[in-house]
């Protein structure tokens, strides 16, 4: 009865990945230097923590929450009040530790509110979170002492003693503070997935009934996970407070909660790193996409629809599927297909995009002239040429795309069959 199990203390792959992650965090602001990009990077860091904490509920615990922003938001509020206390000299903690205050607050509220919410699972759970979120949001406009009304609470992060010359005045310093927190929190949340509680949480997601028969109280498991998620959410909130120096009611709003859900899912809730991708996309969508096009909400909605339909595992699952193909050395067989797929998709989307942009232009900006700039081309929203042109481009794209898609589906299918066979072969060989 020799134990098959081998304990591997040094997992090289893991070290590489984590070092790379640290490196990316470190180098990002050196590559993207503008004001906006540094703020965006900072926000991405925050969003990563928030989405990962959300995924403790959604992906790991199977709890569909519509109110995660309550915990990030209340964390923000506590942190900003603490910040103001620090500036007012009433509290003596370094500004660098304020996110922890947010975390503790998030955890506190999770302990309080989670006690009711986690008594249920499934749809009732989702509905309670929706109700709690609506309540907290409504209260935020009613109790202006704490929430500052719709103007919110603002603060000044240049407070207290400078810490090794760090005043947090310049955005870049705040970025690095956030980066450190991001790294640590991601590491901690990953570690959580590897603990007994983390694993039992997965079991609760899969089959709560059976968990009861192996000694665990499912409510308790959900509750504890909820508290842990609340803690990390609170940290994200605290960082947000430092980053913006203002906290307004929208941080506890339904829109924010919805965004966490949407982008965590888009990134991929079934893999640990999925929400990280989701978080990055979230900031890009909200900050950049909305700048680039007026139709951004439409695009967002459509992308989301198609993702749910065709890649319910999110982007992460797409990546993993391709990694599998790569692992079996078959990526080369399919890259041509990919290229075809990509090119035709671009053609199709360019056509569709041009038409959407023209419609939006007609609706919103027609008075500013009839021309629309789109992907370097100048279109005239009132001329039939532009419309026919775009429609033609789109339809051609669509046709070609369909052809490419069929080809791709064939190739992909073949490769999967090959891989399947290969696995069987190895299994038998073993």
């Amino acid at each position: 009865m020799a134990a098959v199990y081998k304990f591997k203390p040094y997992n090289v792959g893991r070290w590489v990945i984590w070092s790379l992650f640290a490196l990316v965090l470190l180098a990002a602001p050196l590559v993207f230097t503008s004001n906006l990009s540094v703020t965006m990077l900072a926000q991405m860091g925050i969003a990563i923590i928030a989405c990962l904490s959300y995924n403790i509920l959604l992906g790991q615990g199977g709890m569909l929450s519509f109110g995660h922003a309550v915990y990030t938001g209340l964390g923000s509020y506590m942190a900003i009040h603490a910040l103001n206390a620090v500036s007012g000299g009433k509290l003596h903690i370094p500004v660098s530790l304020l996110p922890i205050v947010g975390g503790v607050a998030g955890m506190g509220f999770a302990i309080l509110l989670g006690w009711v919410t986690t008594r249920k699972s499934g749809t009732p759970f989702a509905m309670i979170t929706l109700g709690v979120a609506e309540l907290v949001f409504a209260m935020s406009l009613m109790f202006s002492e704490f929430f500052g009304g719709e103007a919110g609470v603002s603060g000044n992060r240049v407070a207290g003693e400078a810490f090794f010359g760090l005043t947090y005045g310049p955005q870049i310093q705040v970025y690095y503070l956030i980066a450190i927190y991001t790294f640590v929190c991601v590491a901690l949340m990953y570690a959580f997935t590897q603990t007994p509680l983390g694993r039992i949480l997965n079991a609760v997601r899969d089959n709560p009934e059976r968990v009861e028969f192996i000694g665990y109280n499912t409510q308790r498991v959900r509750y504890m996970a909820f508290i842990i998620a609340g803690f990390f959410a609170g940290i994200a909130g605290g960082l947000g407070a430092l980053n913006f120096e203002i906290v307004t009611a929208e941080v506890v709003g339904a829109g924010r909660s919805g965004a966490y859900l949407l982008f965590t899912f888009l990134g991929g809730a079934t893999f640990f790193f999925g929400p990280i991708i989701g978080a990055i996309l979230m900031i890009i969508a909200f900050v950049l996409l909305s700048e680039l096009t007026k139709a951004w909400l439409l695009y967002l909605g459509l992308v989301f629809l198609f993702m749910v339909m065709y890649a319910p595992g999110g982007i992460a699952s797409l990546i993993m599927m391709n990694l599998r193909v790569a692992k079996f050395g078959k990526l080369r067989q399919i890259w041509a297909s990919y290229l075809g797929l990509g090119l035709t998709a671009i053609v199709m989307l360019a056509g569709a995009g041009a038409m959407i942009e023209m419609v939006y232009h007609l609706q919103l900006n027609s008075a500013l002239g009839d021309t629309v700039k789109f992907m370097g081309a100048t279109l005239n929203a009132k001329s039939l040429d532009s419309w026919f042109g775009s429609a033609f481009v789109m339809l051609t794209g669509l046709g070609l795309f369909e052809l490419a898609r069929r080809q791709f589906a064939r190739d992909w299918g073949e490769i999967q069959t090959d891989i399947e066979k290969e696995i069987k072969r190895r299994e038998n060989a073993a």
Partner: protein
Amino acid sequence: MSTYALELKDLRKNFGKTEIIRGVNLAVSPGERVAVIGPNGAGKSTLFNLISGRFGPTSGEILLGGQAIQHKTPYEINRMGLSRSFQITNIFPKLSVFENLRCAVLWSLGYKYTFFKFLSGLKDANERTDQLLEMIRLNKKRDVLAINLTYAEQRALEIGVTIAGGSDVILLDEPTAGMSKSETSRFIQLIKEVTVGKTLLTVEHDMGVVFGLADKIAVVVYGEVIAFDTPQAVRANAKVQEAYLGSSVADSQVGGH
């Protein structure tokens, strides 16, 4: 002081107006292997559900090692050393076989709601899980998701998850349902192996299994235990013959094995 591992006293259960369990008395000594048989719908699974805490009884007492457990939750009962399997496979579909078993092992080794230790560092849990894998002969499928197992493998895993926590009293609800003969006999072997020294209650329809496995047989008919005795005595019992076995089938099935 009771010396029984499990004792049921005048246990009753109503669903709505219908009384399904009508005053069951049963006492199982430690280390005994008891087969519970009876016609379909007699209340065997219900009995198991009552004992394991899935339902609360309408009245009556259930004693586990002398302690009343009829008002306890399933996880409390499990922690007291009783564990069960299900007639309809009930495992964690999206966890690997290994993880399924390890989850079931954790509580008994004291890793309760632990979140400050790595699973990979839990030597005892991992070793025990590997032993279990070996026992239920699924070590080849160690990292396969449970949902991808074949039916028989899933049944084996079901048993594995049940015995993983090392409970002293084990309830198995139709463990061999849906298995071929060869597999059944292998399975019985397995059950015998893994339950050495433990108290076992099992629901079975396959008389071969029943007579091969049980020290004693409890016959449940219409929510009552009409006989509780050694296999020979039960087989000879006219009441049982009439209510359950049906003369010809009983012979051919028993003889066939």
